[in-house]
């Protein structure tokens, strides 16, 4: 079963913004994320992972079929929570997906303290059809 793990950047995280951390803590965080991907590949569970550019770079496009499409900055530039990146994993069960999510949630923050990142776990629509 494939699951998408959505990593929310959120003010619910009890840590200052990453650019204010001690450089060694930043390095440790990046290294953790790289090793995490490698573990998923080694386990035969990795499908895809991407980080997304910041929401201040985002555009929202709406087209109604008449006239030029409407392009605005957004989604919500002042938003407190936004999608920072995702993983797609292929695992045996929802339990395993939750285990993987909890592992990445523990990514280290300042002084190596786990950040407790909120990770949303969603099943990818790839399940087989049930035959009647």
């Amino acid at each position: 079963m494939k699951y998408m793990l959505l990593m929310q950047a959120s003010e619910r995280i009890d840590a200052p913004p990453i650019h204010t951390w001690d450089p060694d803590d930043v390095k440790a965080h990046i290294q953790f994320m790289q090793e995490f991907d490698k573990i998923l590949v080694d386990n035969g569970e990795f499908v895809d992972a991407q980080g997304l550019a910041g929401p201040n770079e985002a555009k929202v496009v709406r087209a109604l079929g008449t006239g030029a499409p409407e392009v605005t900055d957004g989604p919500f530039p002042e938003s407190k929570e936004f999608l920072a990146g995702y993983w797609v994993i292929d695992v045996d069960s929802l339990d395993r997906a939750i285990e993987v999510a909890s592992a990445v949630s523990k990514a280290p923050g300042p002084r190596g303290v786990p950040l407790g990142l909120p990770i949303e776990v969603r099943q990818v629509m790839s399940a087989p059809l049930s035959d009647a």
Partner: protein
Amino acid sequence: MTVAIEDLLREEAPQVLGALLRRHDDFAAAEDAVQEALIAAASQWPAEGVPDYPRGWLIQVANRRMLDHLRSEQARRRREERSPVEEHPPVPDQDDTLVLLFMCCHPALKPAAAIALTLRAVGGLTTAEIAGAFLIPEATMAQRITRAKLKIKESGVPFRLPAERDERLAAVLHVLYLIFNEGYTSSAGPDLQRRDLSTEAIRLTRALHGSSSDPEVAGLLALMLLIDARRDARTGPSGELIPLTEQDRGRWDQPQITEGVALITATLPRGPVGPYQVQAAINAVHDEAPSADDTDWPQLLALYGVLRGMTDNPMVALNHAVAFAMVHGPAAGLDLLTTLAADKRIANHHRLHAVRAHLLEMAGEGVAAAEAYRIAASHTASVPEQRYLTLKAAQALR
């Protein structure tokens, strides 16, 4: 590489691996050696022609690679007590498909790992082909296969039919059925590669049927043939789902239905009857009905009753409820569903909601049916199914 050579190599792959494993017990090394021999054949045969005795050629090449590997291992470990490597190649004199399948469907492996290993070691597919079929990166699939081989090695079960033969045969049949479903249940179009998985599952089950007289093997083969016969009719031009009752039966594969029906008809009286045979019989009833209205529902109800006695699977109970409703009316079916919904395993399954929706629709309860279809759509993880259920919800309100 021509299709003929490709087919030949796929057919020979498990035989070559089996022959090697009768002599050496390092599964991972033997599998690697066979892959190398297959690659050598694929590059040489198209230009130089297929050798008179392809299997002997492959075994010889694979065995040479295996010996090279073992020698370098020995040199590396410098183990004096290890017996010298044998020079003469193993004799290809028996069908090893069954034994090899038993190895790949090892109890230490999770289904996803057993499937990958079976497709590669028994099916002779490349890692890239398997990765493509399961829509995951090749590196991930390579790692899955490597880990599976390692697990078999660590578990230390030697290459022979395990004592718990029947139990392991059940695992083998389950893995083959999962492979079949992976291919069959994917929609048409860009997923053509996945559809090949059904063909592969049928090929492997046919090979297994050739070396095992177990009636459940015949039952599974018949079941696959009878389901697969409807494959072209179950999706529309843009991959949309067409349920059995609305399918164009003229597009069903009649020769395959004839074969499946003959197989299950010959197998059932032999006994003992198992769940695959009963499911094959159920599909035979559907496939033999000239139209949806001509479906022999009393017969299906009886068969689902038999199947219910064999398994605790709530999906079987759900299908039994459908048959019950078709014989005794939608109200009676809805009563059964209320009982079934108490089962936590199925209470929130989209199929339960979809069946309830269908029965409500039959009973003329359009609004309630639309709501049930909507709930069903929100619980499925299949795109074509979600679209179908959403459309049904909209139609139920008309």
